[in-house]
């Protein structure tokens, strides 16, 4: 049904749905806020209304805990969606997501280093970085892993996609082994930090972290938007793209860098969240178009929409406790994805239609 709409109309539809999901996500949870309450709290925070002394608890929960969380969830969804789109475009392969090219595993290894060796140990090598230790080391790990994959799979200035996938699997194995070893030597609480971080969570959202992730995303996203046409050309193959006046090696390197920054900073904040990066671009392709100038902005909107919905579920299922996000992305995402795949196959539709 989306096929009949123009790109602009699809953006508008997704934006409206996203706005609705954001309002719902901001209102629903262990605390419930009516739209009127939310507006009043926002007005008070902005200084448009005088703050009444009553119900400071609700106001603080909304402004200090709920809002940063809702924003962080949305931005995370957008990061993962855009990242999935970029990587599937780069590798011209529909199974690629940040998890496959070593990016997530490298980030996880970097963060695990901080969890196990950085806290309260004699090493304390992360002390100068302070609260930024996890994002910085996650980026270093993710970048090193992704670059290693990239270097191994590059020869004569060309990326061999199959070598790249195989190298990704090998680097993933090394990084997971490193993380596994760290959790083995870790003390009990540290090991559990790694475990829960590997499932993803938004409970630790704070304004500082949310702003950091948002800024990283907006910069990288703005940069990525300029590469939509290049990605379209790359779909034809590297030689063909070169014939169209694009430098494939340079394009791939730039995209890997911006993708790594975005994913590493986000992963450092919320942990590893699987499946969104894989599902979002696919669903958009099947529902609308494989044009990357469309996919990049649409996957940001759709990823954010999906993540807000998943976060609502995470908060409601066993309220007032909550489930790790990664569990729900798999439980909700996988069946939906399988259903779409089946329907697509029965109708005989083209995969990249």
């Amino acid at each position, binding site marked *: 049904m989306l096929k009949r709409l123009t790109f602009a109309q699809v953006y508008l539809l997704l934006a409206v749905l996203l706005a609705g999901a954001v309002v719902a996500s901001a209102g629903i*949870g*262990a*605390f419930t806020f009516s739209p009127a309450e939310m507006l009043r709290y926002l007005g008070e925070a902005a200084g448009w209304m005088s703050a009444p002394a009553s119900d*400071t*608890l609700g106001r*603080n*929960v909304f402004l*200090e*805990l*709920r809002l940063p*969380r809702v924003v962080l969830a949305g931005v995370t969804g957008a990061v993962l969606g855009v990242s999935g789109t970029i990587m599937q475009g780069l590798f011209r392969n529909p199974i690629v997501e940040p998890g496959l090219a070593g990016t997530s595993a490298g980030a996880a290894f970097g963060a695990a280093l901080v969890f196990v060796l950085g806290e309260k140990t004699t090493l304390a090598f992360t002390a100068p970085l302070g609260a930024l230790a996890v994002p910085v080391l996650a980026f270093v790990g993710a970048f090193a892993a992704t670059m290693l994959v990239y270097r191994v799979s590059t020869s004569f200035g060309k990326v061999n996609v199959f070598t790249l996938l195989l190298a990704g699997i090998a680097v993933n194995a090394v990084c997971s082994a490193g993380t596994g070893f760290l959790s083995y030597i870790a*003390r*009990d*609480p540290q090991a*559990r*930090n790694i475990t*829960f971080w590997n499932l993803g*969570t938004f*409970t*630790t*959202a*704070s304004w500082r972290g949310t702003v950091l992730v948002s800024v990283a995303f907006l910069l990288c996203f703005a940069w990525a938007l300029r590469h939509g046409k290049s990605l379209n050309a790359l779909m034809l193959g590297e030689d063909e793209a070169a014939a169209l006046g694009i430098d494939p090696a340079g394009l791939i390197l730039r995209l890997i860098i911006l993708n790594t920054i975005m994913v590493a900073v986000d992963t450092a904040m919320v942990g590893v969240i699987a499946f969104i990066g894989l599902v979002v671009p696919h669903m958009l392709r099947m529902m609308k178009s494989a044009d990357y100038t469309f996919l990049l902005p649409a996957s940001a909107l759709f990823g954010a929409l999906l993540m807000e919905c998943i976060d609502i579920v995470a*908060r409601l299922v*066993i*309220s*007032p*406790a*909550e489930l*790790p996000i990664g569990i729900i992305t798999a439980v909700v995402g996988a069946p939906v994805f399988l259903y779409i795949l089946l329907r697509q196959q029965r109708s005989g539709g083209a995969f990249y239609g």
Partner: protein
Amino acid sequence: MRRSSSALFLVAAAIGATACARPGGGAGRTERVVCVSKQINEFMFAIGAQDLLVGRDLTSIYPPAITKITSVGYHRALNAEGIISLRPTVFLNDGNYGPDEVKTQLQKVGIPILTLNPGTTLDGAEALLDTLGTRFDRRAAADSVLAAWKAGMDSIYRDTLQWAGKPRPRVLIMHFGQLVNDYLALKRGGVADHILDWAGGVNAVDSVGGMMRLTPELIAKIAPDVIIATDVGFDRFGTAQKFATMPGVSLTPAGRHGRIYRIEETDVMYFGPRTPAAVRRMAGFLHPSPPAR
């Protein structure tokens, strides 16, 4: 498994300005407590302050009545909003909770955080119960629980004399086991080790501190006379006979003679009013026909 040598004394750290401002008892009628420590939760029940509890963590399951209280999730994977939605007047913990951000999030909305660290000593645990009695206005109940507890321990100390000069069985305490046949041994120096000692046994693992991962070969090498398994791990097999078929265990004297017993994890993880009973149960396992006095 924190071992601070100075944990003889209870360290009561009241974090957050409001925590200090709140009076200890008095107007305690409207106190609403969310507590994420299984030991403190058990003590709250012991001193009759359970009606103040409005939230507990997932692992606080003793006494059984506590499961009726709302769970705020696993104590290392809490979410601040869930805790705050129970509108607690104090967030009680033993310092072992996470993620770290929960602390700042609770402080932001002005929920007092009270961290009570009982350490791993008997004195520390007794002081913890004493502090709770004062803090939650259950002075008399706390005193009577403490008196019974101390009397129980005195009787345990007297009974330890009967082990003097007698051979002490070498005991391996096997804990947990998330995966099949994946167990941890409790090393020397902890709560379980003290209980073993009072019950007339000796820890078959001779290194100190925390836990050690076991392998079948290691179990066979340790060759304990008796194996004590905590509830989760033991219940996976159901009976001592089945437990004894585990690789490694079957090669030990304990496995050959069927001397494998089950104990509640909470009995050996921290000291509490139940400790004297736990020691007696343990002594019953280690010395099936106790020597005459």
